[in-house]
């Protein structure tokens, strides 16, 4: 009884994954292209999921569409263009580099640059102020104290 319950617990989550339809492809390359495409296209209904992960009805329709186009011999580019023409660039998980997405793409480099500049100026300021004037007698005293302790 216990064992059966445990098995059920193990198997139930895998049912959720099985929501993706089984498809037939002529060759493994086409299949790989199909999976690659549905990984890269966003589901418009649940916006933080791609087509491959989403169970939304629209995601299923768009997977059907992708499959239909890929088996009709359309290229990856034709398929993404088809989606972009209808749903906008938002369907692409990886947005293209253009004037609207420039900030998005350049922000990491920009922020890293600002960070490096701040770091550099801090280090420099510390180095400049890190040499206090100590007169020779004090220095000698400090050295002898340290030397005594080491001994």
């Amino acid at each position, binding site marked *: 009884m216990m064992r059966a319950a445990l098995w059920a617990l193990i198997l139930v989550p895998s049912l959720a994954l099985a929501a993706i339809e089984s498809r037939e492809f002529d060759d493994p390359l086409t299949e790989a292209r199909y999976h690659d495409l549905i990984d890269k296209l966003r589901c*418009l209904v649940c916006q933080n999921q791609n087509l491959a992960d989403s169970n939304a*009805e629209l995601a299923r329709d768009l997977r059907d569409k992708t499959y239909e186009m890929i088996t009709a011999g359309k290229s990856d580019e034709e398929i993404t263009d088809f989606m972009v023409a*209808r749903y*906008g660039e938002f369907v692409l998980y990886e947005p293209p580099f253009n004037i609207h997405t420039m900030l998005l793409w350049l922000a990491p480099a920009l922020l890293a640059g600002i960070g490096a500049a701040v770091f550099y100026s801090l280090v420099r300021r510390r180095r400049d102020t890190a040499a206090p004037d100590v007169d020779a007698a004090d220095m000698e005293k400090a050295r002898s104290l340290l030397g005594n302790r080491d001994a």
Partner: protein
Amino acid sequence: MTRYLLPLGIFLLLAAVLAVGLKLNPREVPSPFIDKPAPALDLPQLFDGGARVTGASLKGKVWILNVWASWCLECRREHGLLNDFSRRSNVTLVGLNYKDADADARNWLAELGNPYSVIAVDREGDTGIEWGVYGVPETFVIDKEGMVRYKHIGPVDALVMRDTIEPLVARLESGS
């Protein structure tokens, strides 16, 4: 003094950016169709077995395409407004019955009233994909040249109807 101004400035800037971000609606995906020719429309009608609804037959008119379904709860919310609108205005209001069963659609209209001039049936949702529909209800305004001029995603509310759709339709109608 300036020691405190810098963090304060950064805080204010961040607060402003986040405040703007809160106001944005992430579900509103800008439609790539605005000011572009409307996608094709050629579908059977809900109430007349033989005839079809085509985009070509609507050329020369300002028309509104409203995507709806009997299973769509939000559609119920905007339906009263559409009924009002169709009584007040003589603009062609085309319904796109999206992924629905004909009988359900007819029952729904019998219950809530039918504001549509004509209803196209998109049972498989193919036309929906052509029009980039992703969240029913959606409402498009198409001008006399067959260009999409406006798209509203989700239920139309009284404000959108009064401040956006009606003035736009009036402007498009008066324009040549």
